[in-house]
């Protein structure tokens, strides 16, 4: 059943072919823009803050395509809309759990975004600028784990913010809020090692850092064996905490909806 949802999501996306080409183009531009920025600031410098230009190119590529493949805004707004209107009550009646349904659907969306957009963009950028392989087999495998964790965390954050819309009566502001936080703290554009040392130490511990920074840092081999496992563990803790938060909010929202009717 959940597989059917994933497939259906994929189909819906492909139906809007204009949007597919446009998203592809948009993503490509974004990645090229950041590579241009890195190339410009690095100039002839070899290594800055422990990273070389080729590493930053790879950083921008992975950050632009893999860790940000999935569109969290759609989910945030969808959840926000369904709790605000009370439509979600429909799901309370069905023989399945709403969050699982969401996860299955979003996996389908992720699949589409990866195949239709991330992959082509990645290939084009890799051919144009060259991409570095993972620092080692260990780091490569760990990267895959971190990447899966990254998707889970951003998924949970999106659902969390969508649910918060129930009390704030608007998803719009939450979307912008999350976007601001991610632009600064997720490490998607700016690697956290460029932050002043003490700030960096703190930011690296926030859940947002697991969305782009930690996966890419692992891929590039910036973390030792011990550090990698530690961060994986911490990431899982965050995932658990966020799941708990989502469960609590979901329960309270569902309660109020069934009592008041949205």
């Amino acid at each position, binding site marked *: 059943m959940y597989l059917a949802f994933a497939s259906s999501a*994929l189909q*819906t996306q492909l*139906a809007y072919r204009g949007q597919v080409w446009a998203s592809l183009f948009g993503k490509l531009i974004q990645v090229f823009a950041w590579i241009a920025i890195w190339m410009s600031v690095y100039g002839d410098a070899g290594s800055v803050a422990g990273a070389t230009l080729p590493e930053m190119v790879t950083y921008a590529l992975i950050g632009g395509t893999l860790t940000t493949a999935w569109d969290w805004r759609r989910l945030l707004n969808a959840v926000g809309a369904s709790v605000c209107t009370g439509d979600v009550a429909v799901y309370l009646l069905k023989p399945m759990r709403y969050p699982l349904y969401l996860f299955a659907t979003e996996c389908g969306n992720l699949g589409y975004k990866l195949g239709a957009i991330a992959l082509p963009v990645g290939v084009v950028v890799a051919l144009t600028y060259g991409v570095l392989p993972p620092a080692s087999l260990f780091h490569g495998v760990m990267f895959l784990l971190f990447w899966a964790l990254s998707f889970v965390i951003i998924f949970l954050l999106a659902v969390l913010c969508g649910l918060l819309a129930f009390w704030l009566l608007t998803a719009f502001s939450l979307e912008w809020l999350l976007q601001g936080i991610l632009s600064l703290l997720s490490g998607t554009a700016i690697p956290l090692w460029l932050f002043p040392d003490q700030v960096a130490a703190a930011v690296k511990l926030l859940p947002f850092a697991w969305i782009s920074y930690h996966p890419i840092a692992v891929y590039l081999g910036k973390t030792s064996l011990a550090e990698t496992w530690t961060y994986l563990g911490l990431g899982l803790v965050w995932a658990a905490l966020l799941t708990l938060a989502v469960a609590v909010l979901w329960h309270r929202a569902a309660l109020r909806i069934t009592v008041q009717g949205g």
Partner: protein
Amino acid sequence: MTAIIEARAVSKRFRQHRRFPGLLGALKTLFTSEYTEVTAVADVSFAISEGEAVGYLGPNGAGKSTMIKMLTGILVPSSGAVSVLGRTPHRQRMTNAREIGVVFGQRSQLWWDLPVRDSFELHRRIYDIAAARFAENLGSLSELLELGPFLDRAVRQLSLGQRMRAEIVMALLHDPKILFLDEPTIGLDVVAKDAVRRFLTQVNSERGTTIVLTTHDLQDIEQICPRLIMVDQSRLIFDGELRNLRATLGSRRRLTLEFGVDPGVLALTSARLVADEGPLKHYLLEREDISLLDVLTEIGADRDLKDVKLKEPNIEEVIRTFYQGRNAAGAAG
């Protein structure tokens, strides 16, 4: 009488982008582009005179809304000519817009979050209505449709019936010569429908406003429009007086005779026996020219007749019969 609305051999065709079903089909739409052509209106002609109230009737997809859009200047005919108040609507859109009022049943022109009065005030400015005339119209029209209690309430707080009444009043504030209504009674409850119908009839007779009304609801037409234009599958199939529809499409009045005592089999030449329940007999009068008196005369005076019921088929039955006949004729080839 000269026509103020004229359609001459008007046709309208649309192009639609094809969608393919399924996952493979979804991939296909990524790379191909195909169109199908749809004819919404085919070779329709009619002329409406000033002061008439005309109903435009037809099933979904018959081309009613498309026709109204061409008459109001929203769409340009693919072929043929449309003339309203002596102008081509789409060519002189703004001048035409000043003299017509349009009410869309399913598309509101009122501002959702603001009081009704604010939308009216905006209307006054857009149509450049003189202050005195505006006050007069607002007063008399809102009194007729009883808008008083909710003129200052936000549109989102109104019921559908109240909103519809406000929309109709707004469309008349600038004294238009023609009022177009696209399915105005859709979704309204019985009381609201009745209010709207009485109001429109009054507007037509007292102000001389020409009314063109599209609808599914035959009672709209029965109450408001003496004349009916019927379309089906993009073609015009009837244009004339409502009472002629029965004659043209055939009518079958039901006659029920109740006797004190079962008179036995009672076959008549003026009416056809369709059901015999002993003292209660049902007949169909299939000819327009035969009246109830003819039937009673044929029955005779000393039959112990207790009660007589004559039922006119309503328009719905008439039209349904027509379609059934058309489909049967089509099937027969």
